[in-house]
């Protein structure tokens, strides 16, 4: 069964460093999302992406964040200058269609630890 994959599974970085989190969405999916989950808290939406453009973003997704689809398969989330409070699990998700009733399939996540 097709699945969303993410790398790395765990990233440790120093405060102020740049990190890039990578995702490979399901191959025939066209809409991509990033969510994060701070330890013990609920999953929160960050951004959605379609046709090489951001479709929606939340208040969390400030100028320190950016997304890109550098080739036909990868979808990346970059944090330019990490802060301690960026420590969280980051999940990528994808859907085939842009519909409120379409299911979002999640990857296994990247655990980001900022020291």
């Amino acid at each position, binding site marked *: 069964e097709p699945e969303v994959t993410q790398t790395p599974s765990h990233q440790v970085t120093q405060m102020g460093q740049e990190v890039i989190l990578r995702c490979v969405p399901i191959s025939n999916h066209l809409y991509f999302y990033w969510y994060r989950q701070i330890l013990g808290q609920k999953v929160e939406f960050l951004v959605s992406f379609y046709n090489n453009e951001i*479709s929606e973003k939340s208040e969390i997704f400030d100028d320190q964040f950016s997304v890109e689809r550098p080739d036909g398969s990868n979808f990346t989330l970059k944090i330019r200058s990490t802060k301690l409070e960026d420590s969280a699990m980051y999940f990528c998700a994808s859907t085939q269609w842009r519909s409120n009733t379409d299911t979002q399939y999640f990857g296994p996540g990247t655990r980001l630890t900022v020291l």
Partner: protein
Amino acid sequence: TQLLEQSPQFLSIQEGENLTVYCNSSSVFSSLQWYRQEPGEGPVLLVTVVTGGEVKKLKRLTFQFGDARKDSSLHITAAQPGDTGLYLCAGSPTGAGSYQLTFGKGTKLSVIP
């Protein structure tokens, strides 16, 4: 902002018992999705409900979407230790142009053998 409240937050039951967890909101959702999440892993989809009043069954799990599409429930019959985990509901809002999922905080289920 659309919020989803899940209850109970924690539930510990004996193997073989039945249980129901709830997902409630004051907002209307186009669809609701139930996920199960294991520690350190991503949410794994269990079911999507779309139509008000819809009932879906997945083996011993029964999911219902409220008639007004503001709430949902998950009922587990004869719980097994393998059902232990965090159950999340997530809603997709109504209205054009927004497809982000709003998640509840989850119900942490522990089934004791």
